[in-house]
């Protein structure tokens, strides 16, 4: 577990826009927090915990992590860098949804617990455990409860695929569509 004691880590910082044209198959891990991790000449900064502990899989950070744009690439960068969960007092709404859609856990803890975890992480990277069943983070002898929207929790546990789930409802969608065409014909654009 590494600490990133910054508020409002926005998606422009998580992945600067200039990297977003790459296809996912190339891997996005190298773009993660690129401009925080590297100097202008590209050298890795030694004072950045994520650089010293490249195998970390959990990040503890401050409020409103992932605010800003809807770019799912921010989540790809985290996931491709091996991050499994981000622990913070709050997350940007779109980011949290994107995270769950890619198997990344956005775990909400209290401000006090986030600060406590950040303080407990010293120079080393301690091993922590996350239990999705009980919604607990264990770091040494300390158990910290976290919150997760129940729907998101189920999704993370079952790995739901929304498109398949929805395609099972195609008849209901077709009925809705037919009804909307009748009651709101104006909702279809006028052909030019």
């Amino acid at each position, binding site marked *: 577990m590494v600490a990133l*004691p*910054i*508020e*409002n880590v*926005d998606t*422009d*910082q998580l992945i*600067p*826009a*200039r990297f*977003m*044209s790459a*296809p*996912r198959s190339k891997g996005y891990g190298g773009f993660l927090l690129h*401009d925080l991790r590297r100097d*202008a000449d590209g050298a890795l900064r030694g004072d950045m915990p994520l650089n010293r502990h490249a195998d970390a899989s959990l990040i503890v950070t*401050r*409020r*409103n992590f992932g*605010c*800003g*744009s*809807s*770019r*799912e*690439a921010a*989540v790809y960068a985290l996931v491709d860098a091996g991050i499994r969960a981000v622990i913070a007092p*709050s997350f*940007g*709404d*779109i980011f949290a*949804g*994107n995270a769950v*859609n*890619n198997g990344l856990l956005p775990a909400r803890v209290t*401000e006090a617990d986030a600060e406590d975890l950040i303080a407990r992480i010293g120079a080393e990277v301690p091993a922590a455990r996350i239990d999705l069943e009980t919604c607990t983070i264990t770091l040494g002898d300390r158990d910290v409860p976290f919150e997760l*929207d*129940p*729907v998101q929790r*189920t999704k993370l546990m079952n790995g739901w695929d*929304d*498109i398949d789930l*929805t*395609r099972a*409802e*195609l008849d*209901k*969608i077709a009925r*809705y*569509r037919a009804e*909307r065409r009748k009651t*709101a*014909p*104006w*909702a*279809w*654009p*006028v052909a*030019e």
Partner: protein
Amino acid sequence: MSAPRTMLDKLWGAHEVLRRDDGVSLLWVDRHLVHEGSHHAFAKLADRGLAVAEPDLTFGVVDHYAPTRNRDAIADPQIARMVGTLQENAARHGIRLFGLRDPGQGIVHVVGPEQGLTLPGLLINCGDSHTSTHGAFGALAFGIGATEVAHVLATQTIWQARPKSMRITVDGALGPGVSAKDVALHWIAKLGTDGARGHAIEYAGSTIRGLSMEGRMTLCNLSIEGGARFGMVAPDQTTLDYVRGRPGAPKGEAWESAAEYWLKLPSDPGATFDREVAVNAAEIAPTLTWGTTPEQALPIDATVPDPARLEPGKADQARDALDYMGLSPGRPIAGTPIDQVFIGSCTNARVEDLRLAAMVLRGRQAKVPGMVSPGSTPVRLQAEREGLDLVFIKAGLDWVGSGCSMCVGMNGDIVAPGKRCASSTNRNFKGRQGRGARTHIMSPAMVAAAAVTGELTDVRPFLTKRAA
């Protein structure tokens, strides 16, 4: 009698295909807008061998990577590839594309309303957080990620848990030089960038009723900077007047029945909201950001905050922001020298915005270089008909083609490291306009005033001098 309902209740109910036991709804999507950044979603669709479910309800726009100069031969191969990929995907799936040479081209959130694709009562999705802009019409409009874009492409529906409702009521007259941008920065500074997280905002009150559609779009656009995915304004006569006659808008009898329905969308009297916030318009001064998040905003006549006087979390962030922005605490923000200006983006590049900026710049010279990128090709042509382009050019600014441009720098229009830019955009995040770029966001009129003086400046004296 049924209980009074909010506009959110009405719009949600009208789009609900089904609701699961856990309360999550499957919603019908009336309009889906895609751009070059949607390449991940199209790739997901291709992986599964699926077609776009409703190509007639899907529209493509080239904006994020659109070159603002020399469009006919895109020099950068990576940019050419991004534009080309969208073109191929649009052609493959039979989607109407507003491509670089299309007379309707522009930024997606300008194009939708302009072409009448955005209408009251619709549910609109786009893989872009500023989709909240379209809520200005009384539509349910929200930004989504790539997985969700793929889902909408494949099914024309989206799973959503209903957000909480929030009403921001702004009453009173706005002072001279104070616009929708200032209203937005004012409330975000008050409540924080996560102040409205989890909520759908409805903007109400006499000030909002008095705003043009363009002002309402600016306000709704910035909702996401306060954490809200949704920002809405109830449809009224101003809305109908804007929509009527647009290419995609209903005509004849269809118009009549649509308009009748739209005027029933406003929240019922007595409807209750999960959260209410009141703002007094008279208290709002021209506002700009000093730091690296939109909540770090202050009136132009204020001083840069001193971290020593802030609570601990905020203090850390303020120190870091001051360092990045190269500012000293306790000093007036006005008078800070700038290197360049930018007028553009889906927030503030509609013709009304350009008129306001031109009003300040007319007959004056810019002390610093800068770019003006109209929000769309129709906006560009309208501005040229009014001679606004000449005002900018004579002042010494570049008049360029439309696209996201320097709002996000994907097309190569960036602010150099360490340079300070007065910008009419929406995000002052670190590196947003280019690595190391220092961004101050403000209204287009304020940007124009900054251009004239070469420093962050109160626009108000410029306007009173003009009136005299």
